[in-house]
């Protein structure tokens, strides 16, 4: 009965702080650069109207994902989960964050030394890996929200 009461207090749609949190990352990491590019083009009276895939064509999105992963790792470290769970989550988030950032490093390396570079592939790779980081970050924040409520009881 006590367990049921505890579960009744755990995460649901009404306590969707994680949604606001992820929205901040989406708006500042994706939409803000896109809107600022268009504003810059408008200011310089240019016909430039780049799409997201053009703005992040060198895999820069991977760096946004890396920043997001670091932020979630920090939240995990502050949580009251056991050290085993914190380590597991942190290592995994670090791995996918680094692999997302690696897309930008690979693109930079290829462009620098003149190996065949395909912007479409860099965009696709960074987009998919960033989507994975965002997805894991959302679920981790939901889990953290649940756990915080249980420990607060």
């Amino acid at each position, binding site marked *: 009965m006590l367990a049921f009461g505890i579960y009744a207090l755990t995460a*649901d749609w009404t306590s969707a702080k994680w949604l606001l949190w992820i929205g901040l990352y989406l708006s500042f990491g994706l939409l803000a650069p896109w809107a600022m590019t268009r504003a810059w083009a408008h200011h310089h009276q240019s016909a430039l109207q780049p799409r997201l895939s053009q703005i992040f064509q060198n895999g820069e999105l991977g760096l946004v994902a890396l920043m997001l992963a670091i932020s979630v790792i920090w939240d995990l470290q502050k949580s009251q989960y*056991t050290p085993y769970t914190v380590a597991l989550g942190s290592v995994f988030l670090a791995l996918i964050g680094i692999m997302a950032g690696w897309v930008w490093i690979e693109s930079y390396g290829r462009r620098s030394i003149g190996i065949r570079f395909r912007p479409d592939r860099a965009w696709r790779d960074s987009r*998919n890996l960033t989507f994975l980081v965002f997805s894991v970050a959302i679920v981790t924040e939901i889990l953290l929200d649940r756990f915080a409520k249980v420990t607060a*009881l």
Partner: protein
Amino acid sequence: MSAAAAALALAKEPRRTLAMRLADPAGTLAYLSLIFGLLLVSFPMAFPRMIIASWQNASLTPVMILLTVSLNLGLYLTVAHRRSAKPGIIAAACLGSAPVFVLAGLNFVLQATIAHTLAGTQPNALARVNEEILAHTYFALIAAIFGPFLLIRLGQQFKKTDS
């Protein structure tokens, strides 16, 4: 005659072995993770209870092994088909065996986690254990799918630099 020769030449051309990129499984894995999150939010009591019940019945790890191995192999074969490339034996063996080792290893970690939680004097120990199992299941599921592809990708990196 020339068309037939060209067709013959095409037929004889050996298919290259599939070179995986991490972005290939990342999209599917992201959707799987979102589904987990959606179930957690839509059914905040029933979904965790189901996971904990199957852990108590000792059926959680076998189910996860079955799910991850089939998903990994399915993903690998889908990418091979899409790129008209030949699936590699070593990669397929890695995708079939690595999730088993990952999940079995993480099961020991989960036992240690539960022992650590119950040994403490914190309040709501049972609820904490349940939350630990839930978080552990999620991270283990994602690790068992992403880990083998990461191993394959790193293995490919040693073989060639321009993949």
